[in-house]
């Protein structure tokens, strides 16, 4: 069976884990209790082995979907021959002081028949441990359908008659008439007795409570510029990728969705990347979500504590180092893209850029009055000292290449930024009574600048280059202006941009990461395309072009506003792990850059009517 396109998934979640829901009403990916736990449903990686839970009408139907406005509650509408069926999916958000005991993990699905008469088909086929466990679903009578595996109890309660299927799982059909509703609640527990919420009217109360909770959260968004809907959707996606108890943000909730269909670049992204730190913190702060930004920076400070002065590439949601990587040969992979991997060996690579990004995130916190303890200040100093020792080493770079270490220009720029920020914090008096080797930091910063400006600049190409003394470009060079290394309006940056455009741009404003990706047939990289918008808005190009490019990129989102890591250069379709925090962070960052630049530029987004009203008011 051909898997559903990555582009056709939507996501629901509760701040601990998420589920991917396809346009065909199937939950094809769910890991419980955490993002990086083994899956219960993994049909996205193997429709035969992975397990799925489908709710859909029998026969052909036209499908439209949306999130209820300003929420992560998904509504899928099936217009079948006989009538209309609407499936509402969510993972409930619980109140702080609940009036009742809540299940620790729950997924709720409500079906309502809006018109005519439709036959609902239910196919519930859970396969714990990435489809490796053989665990039968047993009938618990009024207590629901029970599946026990590894100390976990998964309970499905429904007001629809279901029966065991000979091959495993449950199956059911129900003829629904206009006004009729059906409800499903799937819970998981390993901690004490299961909590079994009743299904029916109570389930809709769940939905309403969660809708209220999400809308309450969205009301905290300060962004009021154009494209607000897309920005808010990205913020909601980021919130779904945030692990509530720690504040860590996972790169994506999936593993091994391929960057090239049928290819081998299939990685596990269910961890929190240090690289994303500065971008994520900036996005949250920019939107007014101070608490989320601060909890992420706190997570970062805790995560790096045990490994200082080394900074690992990523940590798990609790801030632990997760270095192991293994393959799951029993899974065929998305569209046959083998191998399917769990864990990621990139954790222990050397990525010097991580230092700059992490320290920039902490600097943003400190600028807003965030308090750093004496030990944390010492840790920052320790990172700075480490940078002065290792900045000239080759590393795997921001894109964690597995083909060996190189002298990446961007890694040096990031080290420069780390020292710059530390010196800035020192200048602000943040370091109080912690002694800083200021002169050493200044000297190293100067060496870095000289090396970047001489060996990172290719005179013949008239461009900054990806690797020192090299002649290839990389989209990460656009960040030189973002980091304050070089003004976007400078001749050097403008000519670098022209070279990047010439070599990495593909139709509709999409950018490849670097020239390797172009050769290897990878997709255009989501965040790089948004960096381009930010660069143009900062003065590197025409503001109108920046805005038009942003609008074009918004059209690459799927029907519910979500992005994967990469986009197909021809069709704009999603490729790679999904949804990808980095791309959504890029979208928010670009929108904020546009907003910051707008007062100085022509507001091309305004319609004639809006401009006219303004003139009339004047």
């Amino acid at each position, binding site marked *: 069976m051909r898997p559903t396109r990555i582009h056709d998934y939507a996501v629901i979640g509760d701040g601990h884990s998420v589920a991917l829901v396809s346009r065909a009403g199937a939950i094809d990916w769910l890991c419980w209790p955490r993002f990086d736990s083994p899956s219960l449903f993994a049909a996205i990686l193997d429709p035969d082995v992975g397990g799925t839970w489908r709710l859909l009408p029998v026969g052909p139907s036209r499908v439209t979907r949306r999130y209820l406005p300003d929420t992560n509650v998904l509504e899928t509408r099936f217009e079948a021959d006989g009538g209309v069926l609407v499936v509402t999916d969510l993972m409930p958000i619980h109140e702080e002081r609940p009036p009742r*005991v*809540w299940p620790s993990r729950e997924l709720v699905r409500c079906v309502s028949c809006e018109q005519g008469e439709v036959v609902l088909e239910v196919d519930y086929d859970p396969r714990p441990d990435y489809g490796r466990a053989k665990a039968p679903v047993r009938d618990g009578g009024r207590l629901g359908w029970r599946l026990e595996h590894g100390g976990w109890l998964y309970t499905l309660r429904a007001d629809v008659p279901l029966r065991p299927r000979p091959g495993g799982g449950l199956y059911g059909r129900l003829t629904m008439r206009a006004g009729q509703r059906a409800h499903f609640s799937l819970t998981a527990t390993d901690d*004490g*007795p*299961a909590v*079994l919420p*009743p299904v029916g009217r*109570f389930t809709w109360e769940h939905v309403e409570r969660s809708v209220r909770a999400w809308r309450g959260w969205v009301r905290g968004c300060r962004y009021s510029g154009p494209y607000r809907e897309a920005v808010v959707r990205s913020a909601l996606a980021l919130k779904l990728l945030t692990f509530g108890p720690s504040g860590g943000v996972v790169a994506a909730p999936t593993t091994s969705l391929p960057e090239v269909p049928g290819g081998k670049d299939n990685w596990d992204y269910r961890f929190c990347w240090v690289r994303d730190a500065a971008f994520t913190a900036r996005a949250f702060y920019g939107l007014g979500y101070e608490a989320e930004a601060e909890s992420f920076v706190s997570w970062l400070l805790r995560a790096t504590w045990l490994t200082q002065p080394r900074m690992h590439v990523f940590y798990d949601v609790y801030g632990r180092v997760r270095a192991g990587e293994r393959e799951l040969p029993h899974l065929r992979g998305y569209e046959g893209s083998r191998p399917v991997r769990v864990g990621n060996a990139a954790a222990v690579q050397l990525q010097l850029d991580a230092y700059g990004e992490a320290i920039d995130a902490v600097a943003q916190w400190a600028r807003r009055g965030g308090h750093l303890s004496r030990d944390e200040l010492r840790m920052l100093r320790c990172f700075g000292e480490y940078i002065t020792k290792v900045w000239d080493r080759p590393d795997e770079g921001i894109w964690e290449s597995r083909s060996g270490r190189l002298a990446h220009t961007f890694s040096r720029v990031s080290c420069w930024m780390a020292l710059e920020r530390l010196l800035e914090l020192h200048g602000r008096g943040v370091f109080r009574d912690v002694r800083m080797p200021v002169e050493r930091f200044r000297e190293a910063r100067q060496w870095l600048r000289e090396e970047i400006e001489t060996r990172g600049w290719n005179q013949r190409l008239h461009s900054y280059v990806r690797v020192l003394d090299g002649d290839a470009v990389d989209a990460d060079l656009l960040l030189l202006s973002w980091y304050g290394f070089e003004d976007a309006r400078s001749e050097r940056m403008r000519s670098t941009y022209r070279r990047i455009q010439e070599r990495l741009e593909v139709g509709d404003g999409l950018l490849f990461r670097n020239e390797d990706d172009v050769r290897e047939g990878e997709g255009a990289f989501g965040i790089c395309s948004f960096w381009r918008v930010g660069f143009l808005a900062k003065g590197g190009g025409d503001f109108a072009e920046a805005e038009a490019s942003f609008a074009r990129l918004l059209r690459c989102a799927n029907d519910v506003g979500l992005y994967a890591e990469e986009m197909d250069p021809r069709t704009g379709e999603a490729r790679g792990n999904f949804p990808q925090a980095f791309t959504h962070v890029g979208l928010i960052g670009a929108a904020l850059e546009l907003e910051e630049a707008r007062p100085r530029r022509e507001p091309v987004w305004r319609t004639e009517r809006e401009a006219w009203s303004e003139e009339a008011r004047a």
Partner: protein
Amino acid sequence: MSWLLRWAVWGFASTLVLTGLLAGSQRLRLTRLNLPFLLGSMATADRDKAKLYGLGLHLLFGLLFSGVYVAVFAAWGRATWWMGALTGVLHASFVLLVVLPAMPALHPRMASESQGPTEVRQLEPPGFLGLHYGVRTPLVALVSHVVFGVLLGGLFRL
């Protein structure tokens, strides 16, 4: 040390070990029987608070139950580890055969098997011998209570 103080000290120590064994066996995925949570959720719907309150109640009840063990030892005229073990078997049997099956009637938030969950009663009932909480639940309950008895019988002196 007076016998009252000896009871308090060894009764409390044995209860701590029993609580640790139950918590450990849950972490080892042997059972989902969580007595502190069951006790605490009688008082509050908040999961975290239920565990905290329940821990306090469990320690208190452990101390009270150890009084029954001490009474048995006094009636027998001596305290030995095997006497404690035997009393532990009886204690575990009582918990599994009487207390757990009666839980749905005692617990204000627990569903019953005959009526199923309601808006107020949503906690899964333990079932016969607590088997709903995992097939190893009776074994875990038996072993932990026997250890409780062995410790108390071995440490307490009349």
